[in-house]
């Protein structure tokens, strides 16, 4: 019986030695622990006014399937002086599975400054919609920093089969309408308004709404994986598209008064 005993021992040891979360049930399972919940609100609570007139932000997006690149970007972002916070423009993950969400958060949480994320289309796949809601919170939300209002808006219309509520234009209008409550507004979303994945029947409404009020500074998007800036035309709100961190790149954005400057950081 000796060999059986030693084999059984080997069996039991290997079971206990290997960490239990490797016993995965299904790629689409959702069973989050407390440390992975409500990250956006927790990070908003961490925001501290530096006292400077200039806000310094790092913008990343589309970190899906670029764990190594995201990690390089995090190291670079941590070298920025006086960084206030990081905006992630969505597509944290590629397949919408919880395991990816945890992996990318474990990388992004190493950023010394808080990071605050808008939802992307890949984040919604399968039970990703559920995971995002638990891990990051609502799809549409706002916060104010140093008098600047940041409006995060879900524009992933295709994932909602082009429902008339995505993007929620009336909600966006409400957030912008009380112009006395903010100096400038910054609208953050994943799918840019001129993309095929934006709701075609709401395209003009979106454009008109962000241009309806005088103090909307910029619209920041992701989705295209390529850095691009479209300057203001005839007084309209300019657009900035973030890069994916494929090679560790990100965009450095500084905002003061009603002005801003930007730079793509590639090394």
């Amino acid at each position, binding site marked *: 019986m000796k060999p*059986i005993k030693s084999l059984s021992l080997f069996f039991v040891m290997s079971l206990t030695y290997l960490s239990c979360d490797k016993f*995965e*049930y*299904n790629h*689409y399972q959702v069973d989050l622990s407390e440390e992975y919940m409500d990250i956006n609100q927790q990070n908003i609570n961490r925001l501290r006014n530096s006292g400077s007139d200039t806000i310094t932000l790092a913008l990343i997006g589309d970190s899906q399937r*670029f764990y190594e690149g995201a990690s390089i970007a995090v190291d670079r972002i941590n070298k920025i002086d006086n960084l206030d916070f990081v905006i992630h423009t969505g597509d944290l993950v590629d397949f919408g599975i919880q*395991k990816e969400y945890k992996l990318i958060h474990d990388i992004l949480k190493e950023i010394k400054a808080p990071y605050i994320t808008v939802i992307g289309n890949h984040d919604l796949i399968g039970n990703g919609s559920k995971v995002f809601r638990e891990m990051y919170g609502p799809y549409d939300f706002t916060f104010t920093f140093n008098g600047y209002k940041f409006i995060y808006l879900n524009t992933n219309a*295709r994932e909602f089969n082009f429902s008339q509520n995505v993007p929620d234009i009336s909600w966006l209008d409400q957030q912008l309408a009380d112009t006395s409550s903010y100096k400038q507004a910054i609208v953050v979303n994943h799918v840019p308004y001129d993309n095929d994945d934006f709701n075609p029947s709401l395209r003009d409404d979106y454009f008109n709404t962000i241009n309806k009020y005088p103090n909307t500074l910029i619209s920041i998007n992701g989705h295209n994986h390529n850095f691009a800036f479209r300057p203001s035309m005839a007084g309209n709100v300019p657009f900035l598209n973030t890069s994916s961190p494929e090679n560790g790149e990100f965009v450095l954005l500084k905002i003061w008064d009603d002005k801003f400057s930007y730079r793509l950081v590639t090394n």
Partner: protein
Amino acid sequence: MRRRHYILLILFCLSITVRAQDSSSSSFAKKLIPTGAQGQFAGNIGMVSIGPNWNLYKKKLHLEYSFGIVPENEFLKPIYSSALKLRFTPWKFDIDDKTHLYPVSLGIGINYTYGERYSKYNNTSQYERGYYWWTTAMRFGSFYQIEISRSFDTEFIKEAGLYFETSIWDLDLYNYSANENYKQLSYMELLTLGAGFRVYF
């Protein structure tokens, strides 16, 4: 969708009954009769999964069907899935008269998760073909198992074993290997573990 599961379960039970009662079935019908069954914990085919298996070639090649379930929790309703596995077990060692070791079983598997939220990406009115390049409801994996078993002198169960499984699934392999992610991620991110029992009729 659930009806399909009940049908599969009934067929499984029926086939066992047939086996128990009628030993003079035609040879074709005999081939459909399971030659074993297995139950498994984890391994990406459900928290628990259970189903019949068939000996395809000299007890070295087996086909396994498993119906898996991840029970409801505070986040999600239950997840139901079906898995098919092809398992190659080249060696069997006798530790003593009744105890056996299968040191290596290698195989490939497919797991299909039921539900509209996993399959809607095939709807071409919402998504162009290939908008998402991977199959969202179906996962492809490969696995390694080690098993110890014991023979029994009963009519119904001839042998029963316990096995331990390590598997690698397509999306995990992609995440690990694409874009130099292996520099950042631990190789453990590739692996999924499971454990189970198996009976041989």
